[in-house]
């Protein structure tokens, strides 16, 4: 039996994720790395390491779909698809009853309304750092804490503070003021989690919050934000085992479906000559929007 493989690569603003699956949709390997400043050069390195995990060559992958804000800079991808579509697909795979998917990434936050596994509406915020992972990143630097420790620290809070600044920059000053007034750090962290959750909850209110609500993206790894989001939305929030992978996984699933559909219709899929190489350009001025 010849195994066929599909890959999804999600170039986010902060993290790049690669997922390789087989035709049954089983996750075979995944690699996650910081996108970094020279991220367009990194896409192929991350793909290479995913291929090495399975001892495969890039030509062994039947179809590769790139998504995320840097998707245009993946020269070895067969197709680019927006992250909204890929996220919806990935989330619906793990949570078939999902009605609202919330993704908080490093530089944006999205709300996706999903019906019967299909994306029907969305809201998005990428104009302002508040309400995104960047807010917590900046705050953790100000606090002198590790980003990944914030969740656990916030659970110790007994008297959560209120962060009144919507702006990330001015919230820094508020953090300093609270700390210098002797407020315990866990109460400040819990206040930050509430601020980000409140902002995102207001953003998704238009989409009508109904179960199942699924929370993905890097910020979903923070248990404090999960709890704050539950409080702000007034319902249970489900989080996949690896909330970073839903976009890349969705992309790989769409890759798989594209090939299986073509095979069943007896069509062949045109694949451009594939080379595992660095993107040769640096600007993504207007981005490419591609449907599915």
């Amino acid at each position, binding site marked *: 039996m010849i195994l066929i493989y599909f890959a999804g690569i999600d170039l986010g603003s902060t993290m790049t994720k690669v997922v390789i699956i087989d035709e049954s949709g089983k996750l075979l390997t995944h690699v996650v790395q910081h996108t970094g*400043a020279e991220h367009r050069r990194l896409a192929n390195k991350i793909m290479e390491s995913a291929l090495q995990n399975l001892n495969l060559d890039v030509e062994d992958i039947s179809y590769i779909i790139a998504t995320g804000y840097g998707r245009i800079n993946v020269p070895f991808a067969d197709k680019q698809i927006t992250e909204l579509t890929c996220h919806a697909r990935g989330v619906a795979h793990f949570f078939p009853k999902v009605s609202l998917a919330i993704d908080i990434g490093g*530089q944006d936050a999205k709300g996706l309304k999903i019906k019967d596994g299909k994306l029907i509406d969305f809201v998005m915020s990428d*104009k*302002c*750092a508040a309400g995104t992972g*960047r807010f917590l990143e*900046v705050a953790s630097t100000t606090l002198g804490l590790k980003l990944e420790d914030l969740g656990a620290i916030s659970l110790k809070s007994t008297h959560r503070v209120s962060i009144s*600044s*919507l*702006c*990330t*920059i*001015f919230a820094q*000053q508020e953090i*300093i*003021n609270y700390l*210098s007034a002797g407020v315990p750090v866990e109460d400040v962290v819990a206040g930050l989690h509430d601020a980000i959750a409140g902002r995102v909850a207001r953003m998704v209110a238009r989409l009508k919050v109904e179960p199942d609500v699924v929370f993905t993206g890097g910020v979903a790894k923070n248990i404090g934000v999960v709890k704050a989001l539950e409080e702000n939305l007034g319902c249970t929030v489900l989080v996949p085992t690896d909330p970073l992978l839903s976009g890349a996984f969705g992309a790989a699933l769409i890759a798989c479906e594209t090939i299986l559909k073509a095979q069943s219709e007896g069509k062949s899929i045109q694949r451009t000559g594939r080379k595992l190489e660095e993107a040769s350009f*640096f600007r993504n001025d207007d981005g490419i929007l591609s449907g599915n």
Partner: protein
Amino acid sequence: MAYYLGIDIGSGTSKGVVTRNGDVIALHSFRSGVNYKLAGQKLRDELLAMAKLSMKDVAATVATGQGAGLVDYADRKIADIRCCARGMNSILPEVRTIIDVEGQSTYVLKINEKGQVINFITSERCAGGAGRFLDIIANVLQVPIEEIGSLSLKSNGPIVFTTACAVFGESEAVSRVAEGASKEDILAGVHKALAEKISSMVDRVGMEPEYGMCGGGAMNKGLVVWVQRRLGVELLVPPEPQYVIAIGAAIFAREPVNKTFSS
């Protein structure tokens, strides 16, 4: 001889003036720090020392700004936008539209010939719409804040900031530096982005000549030029534009209490 104090405790800088018969005889400012109460006391003490006065010479004090509530020696507290309008009106009476660029917020005020506020709009404490955006980029580029305005005017081609958020803008500036963009072009880009945000606020309030600019942002002559270019009008800038609000507060201090409404 009656002396009056106008005390403006801003989130970034505390500014104060002493007036005698309506003339400013002392001006003083410093970083507010985290303790507004302390800043208010220090400002009073240092202003009085500069004017060689003691508190008993002061007939009345009006406090304004974010820390006004902690100025316990003030007779009254009056909202900063009202002080701004009065201050500008006393210096440049022809001004009807005021652009006040502060560290945390920008205000655009429409005022009448008496210096009363008719309408106003604020950037709502967004660093991307206030002087703070310039501070952040100046810090990335390691350029002293006093020099950024004139450097921005030497640019041959401003880089385009794709964001109006100061946090994302900082990352963008870092990327452009890595790609070899010049300081001048990056500074021109950030001035242009801020000028755009400020000017769109003016568009929303409605244009009415004459136009005046004040606040710490007006000390940046480059920013004044970028806003002028975008709006296509001349901006009048009073001397010592950062003291306009404190001057307005001192004017209110001189008036009988029943003429003003405490905020």
